[in-house]
């Protein structure tokens, strides 16, 4: 026997309580019947027998109670009773309960969600070891703040900079996987053999690239990401050693990377790299001079990203100091022209990855912190007032004999109930916020969109928050339970000044709440204006109703420019025939999607300053592109079907090009050579278009030119294989996705189609960071405003309730309802005005933190400040309106009936 059967009995009695009661009643009835029968057999009349039976049984209700007592589960019973009581007590003041639950819920939810984001974005370790010794190395010069390295720079920094132990290079691109029946376009990278060891990473399966594979014309080899291995190759370990089809070529897989591995630039980029191949640079062929040291003549093309492993004891700062000294020496000795303003620097990998996110995340942190502060202030205020109000109720209970312990238990149960509901709501809110973050977070904010609500995180947050809630409520409960009944009942006056001290404390809280809300809402308002400004910037093209998708033609199937051009001619014709398509073209890089670098040009009649050349952004297009994105033609004509492989070389330039290199001359007819070869066939300028903000809505436009893909393959002879198809449509562009895909499939079913999106989405994505910040601040600002409205409402209702009798007397003496309304509104007014003033002052100081996120609006924009101040005032007024109306209905009879 013992505790187990006791427990079982308690549990089963709890579960089968109803049934047990029913059975007990039946048992007692049966007993009484038998006893009655027996008594009748002893000769009593039916009535007497029945009475005798009942009397000798000793009270059925009493017995039933005793049995129930013996059944066990008494404590659980009492708990349920407490809960029922607490529920009833809270129901009596639903406003209080709902407010506390909402407040706790939003507080817990927001904190949990924010913590999940911070954990994922900032705290989760990067997949490199050791993180503090990994850095990226960049070059910079006039016009480029942070750009690729050349082979010579790579060799020089690897060998000459002592703080750098080793450098690995990588270049990112995309590859078509053509094995199986599902062609797929994935992100790919070429890496040097040492890149993985520089990052401190070993393959999960197989091996990394060998030195031999990393040499020009070395054996072909590929590595795949863990995720691709799982998804496309069914996690088959036998993939190692087997060839896969990359762009129509069979390449053996030598290794699988560990789960979650990414190249440093994959964070905040378009996604993880899935296929890796050796870089196998032919340095000499690239124009570099192989060997250590910096070779001024060569340099080679700047086309590599560099990750460095710092030497033991070295830091990013010491590496940068050394790089600075080295470059200064190059300039001093004339190896490097000073006019290029060349710089080399390293960035710690942590800063590299999380740098772009810190700003928005700190804003978020601030916003949530503020909302949480307000929430806590609200709950604290509410509990305090409730505690004060209940002192008399509790004192009364003590006076009529309630045990102190029971009273405390009751209060704690109430708090637990509140915390329970608050926690549940909090979990829901957190889930909602995280879902929204996953949906809204721009890809440019590294890792934010990967935020998940892990169960452990959620559990911890709920436990912590509930604990905090319980603690805050137990204190007033204990305080209340210690009350001496006589004092409270005596002092519990009917005067108008009850709890003036407590009220003042609460008014201060409300003032702070309003101030904080004003700060947040002003921040949100500034961002709204800023985003509106960004959206109204003239980007030089029109993005509405334009569908885009990326196609890449591998050299295996399309060996030369003629064949690629033929494909595009065919594609344009077929897609143009799709119902709803208005104009169709293609471009190498879409504006606001991919940053565009420049190419050296020789403009006839233009002599660049010493040590400088003329550069221009190179946009390679097919005919139809100008019409599809509506570039504005200023002079001449756009490129069209005349400008094919056989036609005369024709170029369209932008206005910045004309201003920079053709100032004061008629641009049409001018000759331009692409590249540095003076004997190359020149292009003739046939048109001038308005500048396009290609590299960002707020980025400066650079000189640029447009030539057709066909002619570019003739001079300078580069065949552009990856282009984005651009279709201007009559209606909803998304409805053309399926027919356009079908049209492409008709030409070549092997080609994967990637990055299907509208140009509008691309434009929106380019201002994703300020938009995201705006949405966050907007949501939290509204929440703060709502919570402070609740705070105002609470204080005014409190005051009105306290002065109910006073108002009653005034009403009895003939005060008009309007007068009473005015009096009660006045009680909330001072806090509101003070709060708004403090908030505006705080915002004046704090909004400059928004800095870069603001476009075309000053951090102290008077219009925004004024609007928010007015709006907050209105909200506070509305919040006071309800209780004020109640005051106006004060009845003289209340004077007699209080409490």
């Amino acid at each position, binding site marked *: *026997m*013992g505790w187990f059967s006791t427990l079982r009995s308690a549990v089963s009695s709890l579960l089968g309580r109803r049934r047990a009661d029913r*059975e007990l009643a039946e048992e007692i009835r*049966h007993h009484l019947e038998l*006893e009655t029968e027996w008594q009748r057999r002893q000769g009593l009349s039916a009535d007497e027998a029945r009475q005798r039976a009942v009397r000798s049984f000793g009270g059925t209700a009493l017995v039933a109670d005793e049995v129930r007592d013996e059944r066990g589960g008494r404590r659980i019973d009492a708990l349920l009773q407490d809960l029922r009581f607490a529920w009833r007590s809270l129901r009596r003041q639903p406003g209080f309960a709902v407010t506390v639950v909402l407040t706790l819920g939003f507080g817990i939810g927001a904190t949990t969600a924010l913590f999940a984001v911070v954990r994922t974005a900032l705290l989760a370790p990067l997949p490199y070891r050791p993180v503090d010794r990994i850095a990226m190395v960049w070059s910079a010069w006039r016009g480029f703040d942070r750009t690729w390295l050349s082979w010579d720079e790579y060799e020089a920094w690897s060998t000459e900079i002592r703080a750098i132990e080793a450098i690995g290079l990588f270049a990112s691109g995309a590859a078509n996987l053509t094995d199986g029946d599902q062609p797929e376009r994935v992100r790919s990278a070429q890496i040097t053999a040492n890149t993985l060891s520089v990052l401190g990473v070993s393959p999960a399966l197989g091996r990394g690239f060998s030195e031999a594979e990393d040499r020009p014309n070395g054996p072909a080899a590929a590595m795949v990401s863990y995720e691709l291995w799982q998804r496309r190759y069914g996690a088959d370990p036998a993939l190692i050693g087997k060839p896969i089809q990359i762009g129509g070529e069979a390449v053996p897989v030598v290794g699988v990377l560990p789960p979650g591995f990414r190249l440093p630039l994959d964070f905040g980029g378009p996604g993880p790299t899935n296929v890796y191949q050796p870089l196998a640079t032919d340095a000499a062929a690239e124009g570099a001079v192989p060997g250590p040291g910096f070779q001024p003549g060569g340099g080679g093309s700047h086309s590599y990203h560099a990750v460095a492993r710092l030497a033991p004891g070295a830091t990013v700062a010491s590496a940068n100091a050394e790089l600075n000294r080295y470059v200064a020496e190059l300039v001093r000795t004339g190896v490097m022209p000073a006019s290029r303003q060349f710089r080399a620097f390293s960035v710690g990998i942590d800063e590299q990855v999380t740098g772009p996110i810190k700003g928005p995340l700190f804003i978020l942190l601030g916003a949530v912190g503020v909302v949480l502060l307000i929430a806590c202030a609200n709950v604290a205020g509410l509990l305090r007032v409730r505690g004060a109000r209940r002192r008399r109720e509790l004192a009364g209970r003590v006076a009529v004999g309630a045990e102190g312990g029971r009273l405390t238990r009751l209060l704690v149960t109430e708090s637990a109930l509140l915390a329970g509901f608050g926690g549940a709501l909090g979990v829901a809110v957190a889930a909602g916020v995280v879902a929204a973050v996953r949906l809204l977070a721009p890809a440019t904010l590294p890792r934010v969109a990967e935020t998940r609500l892990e169960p452990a995180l959620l559990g911890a947050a709920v436990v912590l928050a509930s604990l905090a809630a319980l603690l805050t409520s137990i204190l007033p409960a204990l305080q209340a339970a210690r009350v001496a009944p006589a004092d409270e009942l005596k002092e519990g006056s009917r005067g108008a000044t009850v709890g003036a001290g407590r009220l003042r404390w609460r008014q201060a809280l409300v003032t702070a709440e309003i101030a904080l809300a004003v700060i947040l809402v002003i921040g949100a308002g500034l961002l709204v204006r800023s985003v509106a400004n960004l959206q109204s910037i003239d980007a030089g093209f029109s993005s509405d109703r334009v569908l885009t998708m990326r196609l890449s033609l591998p050299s295996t199937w399309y060996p030369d420019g003629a064949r690629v051009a033929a494909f595009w001619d065919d594609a344009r014709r077929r897609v143009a025939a799709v119902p709803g398509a208005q104009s169709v073209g293609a471009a190498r890089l879409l504006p606001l999607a991919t940053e565009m670098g420049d190419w050296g040009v020789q403009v006839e009649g233009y002599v660049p300053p010493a040590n400088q050349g003329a550069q221009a952004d190179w946009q390679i297009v097919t005919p139809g592109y100008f019409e599809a994105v509506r570039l504005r033609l200023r002079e001449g004509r756009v490129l069209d079907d005349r400008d094919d492989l056989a036609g005369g070389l024709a170029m369209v330039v932008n206005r910045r090009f004309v201003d920079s290199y053709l100032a004061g001359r008629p641009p049409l007819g001018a000759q331009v050579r692409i590249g540095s070869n003076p004997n190359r066939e020149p292009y003739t300028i046939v048109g001038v278009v308005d500048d396009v903000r290609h590299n960002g809505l707020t980025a400066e436009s650079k000189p640029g030119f447009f030539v057709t893909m066909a002619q570019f393959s003739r001079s300078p002879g580069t065949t552009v294989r990856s282009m984005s198809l651009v279709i201007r449509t009559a209606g909803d562009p998304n409805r053309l996705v399926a027919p356009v895909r079908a049209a492409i499939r008709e030409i070549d079913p092997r080609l994967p189609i990637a990055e299907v999106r509208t140009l509008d989405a691309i434009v929106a994505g380019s201002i994703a960071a300020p938009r995201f910040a705006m949405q966050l601040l907007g949501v939290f600002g509204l929440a703060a405003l709502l919570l402070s409205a609740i705070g105002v409402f609470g204080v005014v209702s409190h005051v009105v309730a306290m002065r109910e009798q006073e108002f009653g007397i005034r009403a009895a003496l003939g005060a008009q309802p309007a007068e009473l309304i005015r009096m009660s509104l006045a009680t909330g007014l001072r806090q509101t005005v003070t709060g708004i003033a403090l908030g505006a002052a705080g915002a004046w100081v704090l909004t400059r933190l928004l800095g870069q996120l603001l476009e075309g609006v000053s951090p102290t924009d008077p219009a925004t400040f004024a609007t928010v101040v007015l709006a907050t005032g209105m909200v506070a007024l509305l919040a006071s309106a309800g209780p004020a109306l109640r005051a106006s209905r004060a009845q003289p009879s209340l004077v007699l009936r209080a409490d």
Partner: protein
Amino acid sequence: MTGPRSDVLQGTLEMMVLKLLTREPSHGWGLSFRLREISRDVFDVNQGSLYPALQRLLRRGLVRSEWRASENNRRARFYEITPAGHRALEAAVVDWRRSSDAVNLVLRLA
């Protein structure tokens, strides 16, 4: 109600119930009837107090209960002693003998 009556100590009542149940399973009224009969109405206790005692015994696993048809073919709850009940009864009887012997000794010799 005739004859002298006694307030039965809780433990004693339980012991007697267990003892009665060693003969055969019985429902509550049957137990109260036999208790009165055997004790010659000395233990004409409040018949209701039997039920909390039975509930205690149930809870401690000394008896188990079952609904079945009674002798006059009505649904009744029958109680039955368990092996644990047997052991508890033995212990209780030993205890009872020892203390009642002691009480008798005192009454006789003092």
